[in-house]
């Protein structure tokens, strides 16, 4: 049934996005890229996919400018799609940007807390998380004003309301604020895709639920792993776990009690994928713990985070097997982001002449 009227409003967008997906770099492209000797070679290899955007780069550009230019392409394409989206798809895409918005607002909060000129920070904000009223936030000079303007001016108000007060912004670590917001955002997004009349019961809900559940689990596991050895208490940690996902509620409860990597492994044992990830990471990481991409100290086994990325990419890839769903927009953005990360990584490896780790990128096509 959902397919009957989907194309009336969203067919064009779907077509465009599928076209963009075909523009993503494939394994063959990546293989060519890893053979490059210099950034210029890399630029040449990226020519077909990113031509116009890389044209303005000087010879041998820095990796950060390369990353900025590739992001520019994503942003401009996203804006084009967003401009053509109507109805619930438009809202869906707005939801997509909220995640970046949270990062930007967190950045501005940091700036305000340290009494910096927040206008300088606007350039550093992620362009996808840009909203019209963002410069207004820079007017605020103290945290209370900022809090009020965030509530009034941004779509993030519901995420602040109820869980954070302006005192909290002052007292809590900015990372806790950010993760609280993100948790609220994920829950809201999840609720949105499952409750909106246009999406409930459609492939969109199915695809997005899978992606968001995975995202929620990933955050829960990451927060747990990263909080070991910090002053984050277990009770506070529990508050940062999103209240849905494959691990919820037993897994998250166990995660909240975990003290070490072993505890995390036990907590996620109920889900086959995570279990295999943990086992692989546990074996690969050795006694050093979960062993995320070891900081140059050896250990070329894949880290847990790598595997999560890999899994996310696979889910995103699978989203394209479905038709009549908004999920492909989300999946396309994620795939594109990963592509930018891959390019940056390869460029870094080439720039630093560290070819042995160059194959650490994640390619799914």
């Amino acid at each position, binding site marked *: 049934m959902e397919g009957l009227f989907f194309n009336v409003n969203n067919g064009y967008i779907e077509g465009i996005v599928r076209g963009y997906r075909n523009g993503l770099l494939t394994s063959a492209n990546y293989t060519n890229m890893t053979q490059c000797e210099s950034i210029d070679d890399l630029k040449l290899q990226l020519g077909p996919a990113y031509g116009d955007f890389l044209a303005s780069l000087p010879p041998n550009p820095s*990796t950060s400018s390369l990353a900025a230019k590739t992001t520019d392409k994503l942003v401009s394409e996203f804006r084009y799609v967003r401009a053509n989206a109507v109805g619930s798809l438009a809202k869906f895409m707005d939801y997509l940007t909220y995640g970046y918005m949270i990062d930007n607002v967190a*950045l501005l909060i940091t700036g305000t*807390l340290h009494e910096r000129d927040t206008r300088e920070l606007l350039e550093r904000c992620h362009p996808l998380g840009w909203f019209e009223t963002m410069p207004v936030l820079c007017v605020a000079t103290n945290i209370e004003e900022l809090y009020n303007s965030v509530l009034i001016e941004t779509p993030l108000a519901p995420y602040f309301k109820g869980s954070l007060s302006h005192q909290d912004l002052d007292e809590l670590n900015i*990372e806790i604020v950010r993760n609280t917001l993100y948790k609220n955002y994920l829950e809201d997004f999840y609720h949105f895709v499952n409750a909106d009349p246009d999406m409930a019961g459609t492939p969109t809900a199915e695809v997005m639920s899978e992606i968001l559940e995975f995202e929620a689990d990933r955050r829960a596991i990451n*927060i747990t792993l990263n909080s070991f050895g910090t002053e984050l208490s277990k009770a506070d940690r529990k508050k940062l776990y999103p209240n849905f996902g494959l691990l919820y509620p037993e897994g998250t409860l166990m995660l909240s009690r975990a003290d070490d990597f072993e505890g995390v492994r036990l907590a996620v044992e109920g889900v086959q994928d995570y279990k295999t990830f943990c086992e692989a990471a546990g074996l690969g990481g050795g006694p050093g713990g979960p062993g995320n991409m070891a900081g140059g*100290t050896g250990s070329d086994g894949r880290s847990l985070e790598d595997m999560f990325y890999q899994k996310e990419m696979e889910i995103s890839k699978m989203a394209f097997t479905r038709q009549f769903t908004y999920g492909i927009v989300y999946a396309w953005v994620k795939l594109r*982001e990963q592509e930018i*990360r891959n390019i940056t990584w390869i460029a870094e490896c080439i720039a*630093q002449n560290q070819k042995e780790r160059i194959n650490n990128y994640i390619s799914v096509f």
Partner: protein
Amino acid sequence: MSGAADREAVFPTRQSLGLMKAKLKGAETGHSLLKRKSEALTKRFREITRRIDEAKRKMGRVMQIASLSLAEVTYAVGGNIGYQIQESAKSARFRIRAKQENVSGVLLPTFESYQTEGNNDFAMTGLGKGGQQVQRCRETYARAVEALVELASLQTAFVILDEVIKVVNRRVNAIEHVIIPRTENTIKYINSELDELDREEFYRLKKVANKKQRDTAAGDAEMKKKKEEQDKVDASGQENKEQEETGPTDILADAAAEDEDVIF
């Protein structure tokens, strides 16, 4: 004689000769001491050069690893976290102490690094994703800074030692090539002057002796001549004047003798 000009302005006396000899001895002792100091410093200097070389190579490796781990952070976090890190850092975690080391009288500063415990300002950065990479990156950079500090203390020592060695070598050379030859020249000069004086004195004495001899000889000759003349006169006038002369003479002599007697 080139050394003639290059000597100290002293009067060539025995006293200044003694002074000069003492000075020469002092200069030689000083020279050997300074030479030894310079050698010790040079040894140290070479060692430091070697260690700087090592440290620089190590530095290259560590920095490479560190910047790669920063790339990893960028990859894992998927964005720029620099600002956040900058703002959340409140107090220094990595600190250095400066100490002084004494190498043959030269004070070399050495830096010792240490990390303050429990000062982890951005432990929660990247809590959602990439936190471990951030921590690991921090550790690698801490190692890099450690290498940097080591290198810095070596470099400082290098510069200071270089300066000191130059000064010491200059002194050694000055003593060896200026002070000692000059003192030797002075001694030689004093000696030669003294010899000259000696010779002069001798010659003078000889001259005086000669003259004296000559004078005596002349005196003798004159005396002789006089005597001869006298004798001749005496001999010629003896007959006619004998009576007259002897008479009054004897009288005079007698009178004088008598007078003396009278006076006493």
